Every structure is written in C-alpha cells, then in structure tokens.
C-alpha cells in the first residue's frame, strides 16, 4: 500500500531527522518520497545528508591491521572479477539459430530424359542441398555446444561466487560462535572469580564482574543502570592497593543493561574492589565523579 503523500510543510519539518535516519520507516519513506520531487526539500535534504555523513570523520583514526585491508581488497576484487565474468553476455553465442539445415528441396519429377537430367540435376542439387543442410546442422550443433559451453562457464562462475559468499557467511558465523564460546568460558571457567557490585537507592542498579584469571579477561555485566547525564559517561575501575585501573568507559542500553569486556593482567590477590563512577565524557585518568556502584571480591568469593 502506498503511504499517504506528505505536504511540503510537513516534510520540511522532518528533513533533519530524515537525514539522520531517525524517523519510523513509513514516515522516512514519505519524507524521501516528497523530497524526490520537491525542488526545495530535495537539495536541502542532500546538504543535510552530506553534513551528517561527515560525522564519520569524527571517529579516531584507525589504520587497523594493514593485512586486513589488503585481505579485503583481494577478496573484493576477486569477487568483482567473477561478477564481471558472470555478467558477460552470450550475444554472439546464438547466431540466428535458424533450424533450416535439414529442409532439403524434393527432387523434380518427370518421364523424359530431360526430365531424367532434371531428376539427376535435382538429385545432384538435392545432394548439394543435403550437404549444405548437414553442414548447417553441424554448424548449429557446434553453436549449441558453444552456447552450452558458455552457459556452463557462466554457471561455474556463478557457483564460484555463491560458494565464496557461502564460505564467507560460514566464516563469519564461525567467528561469532568462537566469540560466544570465549565469552561463555570467561563467565563459567574454573578460574573465574565473580565480584558482586551493589548500590543503594530505590531502583538500585546491580552488576557483576567476572574475572577469568586464566586469560586475564574481565567481563562486566550490569542491569538497571540509568542513562548518564548529558556530557557524562560511566567508567569502570579495577581497584588495587597501588592504583585504580580504568577498564573503560561505557553507556548502558536504553533498558539499563550494560556489558563491558576487557583484558588486563592482575596478580590474583591484588584486586581490592571493582567500581563504576560517573565521569566527564571521554573518561578520566583517575576517578573524579560520584560512585555509582561498587563491590569487593569478598562479596562473593571466586570458585
């Protein structure tokens, strides 16, 4: 069903939200639909989109592992070349495809020598036509073989592309499962210590830190955390006798859940507490803000 058209004034009010893609799908579609034909909203939406896209450049510079980028490049170009090969047309593979090779003219009939000659000529002509016909049939067969060969080639390319895509999907799923397995191990392994964090208040958040001593892996899980105030963030700390180690800043989901994972080697007996404080956006080198939730290893001894 086509959504109802949106007036210019209505659409103009929503261009910014549409550029940020924050509207419900149907409303977004109606704005885009209007902008596609409106000489005012169309260019304005394009300018807003161009500005919003520049936010991508605000992220920290990341070069990643150059081998990764090179690996992606190699795979991408291989797929693209396969794509071009798959799309190659078979326009010259079926030249006419007229099946007239076997249609030979019948010999002329008659009782006289002339007729006999005509018959002979007719036979000769028929023989010639038969040869031509068989040649054309053979040519058509060859053409058909070529067509089949090309089709097989295209089919092979298609299979290769699909196999590659399937393989990539399997690899992706395998990595996902491996990541989940690692996470489960870091929550349930024999070397895992659990620290309960508590807070006071009517709707107090709750949290646990899972410390996998075998891998130095830390997994922090929290519930019922309110959103930090604007310009502020939560920061997780590992408290030792010597220092307070930042394990990262984070913000909870809208439902108050949060999960933070980190790796940090710590001697088995040096953890005194795990704490979360509220800090300025970007975090602090040392805790400065109010304590949100905290716990000590004694709250729940490790296994």
């Amino acid at each position, binding site marked *: 069903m086509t959504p109802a058209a949106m007036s210019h004034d209505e659409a103009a009010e929503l261009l910014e939200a549409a550029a940020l893609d924050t509207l*419900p799908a149907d409303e977004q579609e109606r704005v885009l639909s209007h902008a596609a034909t409106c000489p005012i909203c169309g260019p304005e939406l394009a300018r807003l989109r*161009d500005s919003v896209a520049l936010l*991508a450049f605000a992220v920290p510079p990341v070069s990643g592992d150059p081998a990764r980028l090179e690996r992606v490049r190699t795979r*991408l170009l291989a797929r693209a070349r396969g794509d071009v090969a798959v799309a*190659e*047309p078979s326009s010259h593979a079926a030249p006419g495809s007229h099946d007239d090779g076997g249609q030979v003219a019948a010999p002329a009939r008659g009782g006289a020598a002339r007729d006999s000659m005509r018959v002979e000529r007719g036979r000769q002509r028929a023989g010639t036509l038969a040869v031509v016909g068989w040649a054309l049939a053979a040519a058509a067969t060859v053409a058909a073989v070529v067509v089949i060969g090309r089709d097989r080639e295209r089919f092979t390319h298609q299979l290769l592309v699909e196999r590659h895509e399937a393989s990539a999907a399997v690899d992706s799923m395998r990595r996902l499962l491996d990541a989940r397995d690692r996470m489960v191990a870091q929550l349930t392994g024999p070397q895992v210590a659990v620290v309960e964090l508590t807070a006071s208040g009517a709707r107090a958040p709750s949290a646990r830190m899972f410390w996998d001593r075998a891998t130095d892996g830390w997994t922090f899980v929290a519930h019922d955390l309110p959103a930090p105030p604007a310009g502020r963030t939560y920061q997780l700390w590992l408290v030792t006798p010597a220092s307070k180690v930042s394990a*990262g800043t984070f913000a909870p989901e809208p439902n108050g859940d949060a999960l*933070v*994972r980190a790796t940090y080697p710590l001697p088995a007996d040096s953890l005194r507490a795990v704490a979360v404080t509220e800090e300025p956006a970007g975090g602090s080198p040392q805790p400065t803000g109010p304590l949100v939730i905290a716990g000590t290893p004694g709250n729940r001894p490790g296994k």
Partner: protein
Amino acid sequence: MNPRAQPPAYKPQGGDQGAFPGDRELVARMSAGDDRALAQFYDRWCRPVYALVAHLVRDADDAEDVVEDTFWQAWRQASRYDSSRGEVSTWILTIARSRALDRVRSRRRLREEPLTPVPLADDVVIAVGSTTDPLREAEASERRALVADALRSLPAEQRQVLELAYFGGMSQTEIAERTGQPLGTVKTRTRLAAQKLRTALSVLRDEAHGGRSAQ
C-alpha cells in the same frame, strides 16, 4: 548488451583528473563493470570506512566483514548512485554505517553486547595508527579537527542527540527513552543540531563537492 560485460579500458586523460579521477568518475566506471575503478575507489575510501565501521562494531573480524560487504554493495549498486541525493562520500559512508549498525543489531539480538559502542581498556582489538602518507594524514587530521570542532560547538544535549542517532543508530523514540527527555524535545534538538552541523561543516561539504579525496 550487458553494461558489466566489457569494462571500458581506463586511460588517464592527462593532468590531475586523469591521474586522480574524481569519486563520481570512479563510481561511473564501477557501474560499467570496471574492477580497476573499484580497486582505486577501495584504496581511496577503505581507511575512513574501516575507521567508521571499527568504531561502530568494536571487533576487528566483524569490521573486516562489514568493510567487504560495504564495498561489495557499492560495486553492485554503483549504477544506483544519484549525485542529486548527496556526494559519493555520503553514499559510501552511509552504506558503511548502515551495514555496521546492522551487524551491531544482529549481535544485540544474540544478547552479546549493548547497542552503544563500548570502548575497552586493554583489549582494544583495533590497532590505532595513521596512514603512511603524511599529506593524507595531515588532511585527515584537519578534517577530523573541523568535525570535532563542529560537534564541540553544539550544546551538550544537542550533541548527545546527534551522537546517539548517528553512532548509536537510535530512532528519536529510542533517544527519548534513553535520555529521559520528551519526544518533542528530542525532535527539536535533532533539528537544531543537524542545522548547526550543516552550517558549521559547509566548508568541508564544499570541498567534498569539489571532488577532494577521502584521505
């Protein structure tokens, strides 16, 4: 004839335009099936795309997958690029953001992690570094500074709405729930923030329109 069948041979036209074809030219050649244009386009855009994707998905393996998906989509849909709807930079970065947020949402459905990217302390899997080209790095640094300045110039509550929408992929309703603000307030802040951003970044936008490269 299938337009992807016979990639046009790329012959530099001489001068800068030939040696450094513009983004639009590359996309046009990609739509004609020229995989060399794809290679050039990838070399030009892979770092900003990777940086954005890595920032959003926070996992190097996932980032690798998403970057490949992004450029594959660009290759397959190059003919659908419409310059009247935005610059090539907008087009490729929008594809990248969309694919990355899809990946994050997919993981969230598996209850693996929250939607909001979580910076980690010591197991940051993405190596932070710079490009090897000092000139490109200087340009990228300047652009980063301009965008950061534009963001900093916004009131905190407008910046928050912008960041939750763009980097968190949240709808206005989700932002209202997240921040505890009325939906009407979120809508107003979204409008003001995007308008100010448009004004503050007009210089960069004009540069992009002039065809400067990504890095």
